[in-house]
C-alpha cells in the first residue's frame, strides 16, 4: 500500500484557511441526529433512483443536512446568531476526524489476469467502463491526462502518474499534486480459484480539500463514489466477458402517452 500512503502530498489543494478542530457546534443533539438522518436519507434517495427530479438540489440539500448533523454546525443559525445547542456541546468537538476517503471494490472476471491487466493498462479503455471519465490521453509511459464529467455536468481534468506497474498483477497511480481532488489508487489482479478467471480489486484513496466542509462532503460522497466504482467494475466485467455492456439506453417506451387507454 506504499503508493497510496505516498499520495498525501503536502500541496495545498484546499482553501487557504487554517484548519482548527471544527466549526462551532450550534445545533442540539437531537436535531443533529435528525439532520444527519434526513440528509443521509436524501442522499440515499438520490443515489438509489435513476431519475429523481431535482436530483442535484436534493443531493446538495442531503449533503448539507448530513454535514450539519455530522458537525453540529448550522450556517443559518450562525448567521442569525442563534442555535439549538447547549454549551455542553462544546466539549464534543470532534478533533482529528479522518482526512482520507478510501474506497474498495472487487469483481471476479472470467478472463486470465494477463488479459484483464492488459485491458486496464491500456488507459484509453477507461471511458468504456468508467461512467464519469470522458477521455484519457496518454502522455508518456507513466503519465496521462484524464477528463471527467461530474454528475452535475462539471468538467474536471487532471494528470495522473503510474507509480507502480507489475504486468498481470498490479497498477498503482496517483494524481498530480495540482488535481482538485488529490487521489491515489491501485488495482490488483490475481487468479481466482477454480479457474474462474481474475479477481480484480480496486483501492482508491482521496485526499479531500483541507476544510471541514470539504472533508465532510468527501466522506459523504465517498459512499456515492464507492457505488460508482462498483458500477465501473461491473461494466469492466461485462466488457471483458460479454464483449459489450448491458444497456437499455435508446430503447422505445411510451412517453408521453400518445394514445388514450384503448
Amino acid at each position, binding site marked *: 500500500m506504499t503508493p497510496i500512503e505516498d499520495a498525501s502530498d503536502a500541496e495545498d489543494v484546499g482553501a487557504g484557511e487554517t484548519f482548527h478542530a471544527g466549526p462551532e457546534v450550534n445545533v442540539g443533539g437531537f436535531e443533529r441526529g435528525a439532520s444527519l438522518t434526513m440528509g443521509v436519507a436524501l442522499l440515499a434517495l438520490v443515489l438509489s433512483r435513476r431519475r429523481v427530479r431535482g436530483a442535484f438540489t436534493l443531493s446538495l440539500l442531503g449533503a448539507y443536512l448530513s454535514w450539519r448533523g455530522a458537525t453540529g454546525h448550522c450556517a443559518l443559525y450562525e448567521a442569525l446568531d442563534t442555535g439549538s445547542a447547549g454549551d455542553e456541546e462544546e466539549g464534543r468537538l470532534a478533533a482529528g476526524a479522518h482526512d482520507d476517503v478510501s474506497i474498495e471494490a472487487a469483481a471476479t472476471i472470467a478472463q486470465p489476469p494477463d488479459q484483464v491487466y492488459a485491458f486496464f493498462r491500456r488507459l484509453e479503455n477507461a471511458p468504456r467502463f468508467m461512467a464519469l471519465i470522458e477521455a484519457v490521453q496518454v502522455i508518456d509511459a507513466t503519465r496521462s491526462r484524464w477528463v471527467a464529467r461530474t454528475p452535475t455536468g462539471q468538467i474536471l481534468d487532471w494528470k495522473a502518474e503510474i507509480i507502480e506497474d507489475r504486468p498481470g498483477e498490479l497498477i498503482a497511480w496517483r494524481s498530480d499534486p495540482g488535481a482538485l481532488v488529490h487521489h491515489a489508487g491501485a488495482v490488483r489482479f490475481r487468479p481466482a480459484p477454480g479457474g474462474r478467471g481474475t479477481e480484480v480489486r480496486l483501492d482508491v484513496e482521496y485526499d479531500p480539500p483541507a476544510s471541514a466542509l470539504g472533508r465532510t462532503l468527501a466522506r459523504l460522497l465517498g459512499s456515492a463514489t464507492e457505488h460508482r466504482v462498483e458500477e465501473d467494475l461491473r461494466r469492466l466485467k461485462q466488457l471483458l466477458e460479454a464483449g459489450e455492456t448491458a444497456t*437499455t439506453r435508446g430503447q422505445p*417506451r411510451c412517453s408521453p*402517452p400518445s394514445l388514450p387507454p384503448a
Partner: protein
Amino acid sequence: MRANCWFGKHDVRLCEVPEPQLLSPRDAIVRVTLTAICGSDLHLYDGHVPGMQEGDILGHEFMGEVVSVGSGVENLRLGDRVVVPFPISCGRCFYCRREQWSLCDNSNPNAGLAAAVYGFSCAGLFGYSHMMGGYAGGQAEMVRVPFADVGPLKIPAGLRDEQVLFLSDILPTGYMAAENCQIQHGDVVAVWGCGPVGQFAVRSARLLGAEQVIAIDREPARLSMAAAAGADVIDFSAEHVTERLTEMTGGRGPDACIDCVGLEAYGRSPEDLYDRARTTLMLATDRSTALRQAVKACRKGGVVSIAGVYGGVVDRLPLGAAFAKGLTLKMGQTHVQRYLRPLLKRIEDGTIDPTFVITHRVPLEFAPEAFDMFKHKRDGCVKIVLTP
C-alpha cells in the same frame, strides 16, 4: 409501432412508440408474431412490483421473426423464426457456462439496484421492472433482443407458433419444477396450483417417471385439466390438503412437493392461480400458505420444489419442519435456455402439446381488455395469447 405499456396499478395502455433499434453488437430485432400474458404480468398489473415506470413496455413471453441483427450475431439470419427465453443471458459468464442462465452476471444494466436488495444481481428480464434491467418487453410489434446469439431458439417449419410460444417461459418453468424433484421410480409428486405452470409441472412429473401426481387447486376446470393428464386431484376449498395428502399416500406423504403458487412481486406463478389466490381467504391472510403446506406435507427426506416466485421475505416458514425432516428445497427463476432444445424435441415428436392451456386468442390492440379479463378470470380465462 404499437406496444402494450404499463402506466400504474390496473392501468395498461396500447401506445404508439418508436420502433426498437439495435443498441449493441449482440442485439437482434424481432418482429413479434405471437406473445402472451403471464400470471407474473398480473403482479405488475396489480402494482406489486417496485421499479416499474410509466410507459414501460410489458411482456416476456414472445416469439417472432428476426428482422435485424447486430454485427456480433452470427447464428441468426433475417427471416429466422425464433422463440425468445424470458431471461436475458450473456452466455459467457461463470453462471451461463454452468447453464444457470437466469443467474447471468452480465445482463442487468441496473445490477446495482438488484444487488442492493438481493446481495447480487441475477439476469435481466424482458418487461419486468427496472430492478430486473428495465428491458422493453414483447407485448409489442417489435422487440430488441440483447445477446441474441445466445437466447433465441430457431423454430423449424411445420410447427405452429402456438405450439412453441410457451418455450419462452411457462413450459420450461413447469418442467424445471418437476426436474428439481429428482423423481425416482415409484415417486408420488404433489403440485400446488393448476394454472398453466402447474399444468406443465403435472405433465412433466409424469414424463419424468412419477407414478402418481396429485394436483391441488379449487377450480373444477383446472382440476379436470390436471386429471386429464392422469393426476389425482384435491380441491382445497372442499378438503383439508395435508390430511388428504397423507391419506392418499398411505400415511407417507408425497416424495416431492411442487409449489406453483408463489408469493408476490417478481412472480412467475401460474397465471390464474395467483389471481384467484388473492381472492381467497386462505391466501389473502398469508400468502405463503402453499409453501407452508408443501413443507408440512412432504415426506421425510423429500424435495420441495418452488416454481412460484417469492420476491421478499416469507413469514412463518416452518423451517424447523424442513430441517427435522431433512428436506431438500430447490427453487429459482427458470434456466429457460437449458430446456429449449430438449422440450422442442418433445413438442416435435408429439410428447408435449402445450396448446391445451390457451383459452383466449386476442389481437394485441385488446391487450388492456385482456389484462382486465385475465385478472378477473372472466369467461373461463386461463391463458391469453396476443397477436400483434
